[in-house]
């Protein structure tokens, strides 16, 4: 019961925050809502017994990505003046499409059978994740690091003044 209550509370707040992200006219507020949503997701990870991911979620999404976005907004604040509207012309199509998509997918997911497995999370989960990175998944891991390097260089090249 407590678990369900916690889930409903967290998930509800997270969804409200997410709605705030897409609805807020002020970009800075949207970014703050984004931080809230990320935080809620981190809590959900911890509820799912993935503490490592919860902490990593906060470090990466709130500590890095959200702050980066806020920084970008602050840098470009004078463009953000009172503009015609936050949404483009066919936002109602988008809304209809998204709602339809949500209902359809949600219905499908409820219908779909899953082979649930009840087992404890291994005690050395973090160690296993680490082993996975340098063992089974070393190639994707290396590729991801190369991707980050390339993104770093690319971002610098794109953003620098010529």
């Amino acid at each position, binding site marked *: 019961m407590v678990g369900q209550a916690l889930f409903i509370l967290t998930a509800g707040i997270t969804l409200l925050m997410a709605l705030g992200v897409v609805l807020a006219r002020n970009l800075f507020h949207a970014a703050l809502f984004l931080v809230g949503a990320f935080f809620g997701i981190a809590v959900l*990870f911890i509820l799912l017994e993935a503490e490592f991911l919860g902490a990593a979620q906060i470090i990466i999404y709130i500590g*890095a990505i959200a702050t980066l976005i806020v920084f970008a907004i602050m840098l470009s604040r004078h463009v953000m003046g009172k503009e015609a509207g936050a949404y483009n012309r066919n*936002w109602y199509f988008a809304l209809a499409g998204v709602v339809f998509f949500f209902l359809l997918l949600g219905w499908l*997911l409820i219908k779909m059978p899953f*082979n649930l497995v009840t087992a404890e999370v291994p005690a050395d989960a973090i160690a296993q994740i680490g082993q996975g990175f340098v063992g089974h*998944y070393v190639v994707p891991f290396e590729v991801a690091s190369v991707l*980050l390097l390339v993104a770093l260089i690319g971002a610098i090249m794109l*953003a620098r003044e010529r």
Partner: protein
Amino acid sequence: MTVPLSWYLIFATALFSIGFFGVLARRNAIAVLMGVELMLNAVNVNLVAFWRYLTPTDLSGQIFVVFVFAVAAAEAAVGLALMISIYRTRKSINVDELNELKL
């Protein structure tokens, strides 16, 4: 585990849809980027939930989430750099003014 798997899935779907709406409807490119981040997070929730409920002993689900983190970080960095670059040339980062994607 008292919370059924489907709750998580519905939650992730909702989050995904909200993010997708942001991507589709917002005019400001940074807002679009935020929508993309929400969508990525929805995927992460799904991955973790599937891991916890379907294969709790095999940690591949968590590992994939970390890869998504890496991709999201790269995407955010490049996306924001692009916006700065676009702003410099076009003095605007409204997505509906960027209509070069046609013949």
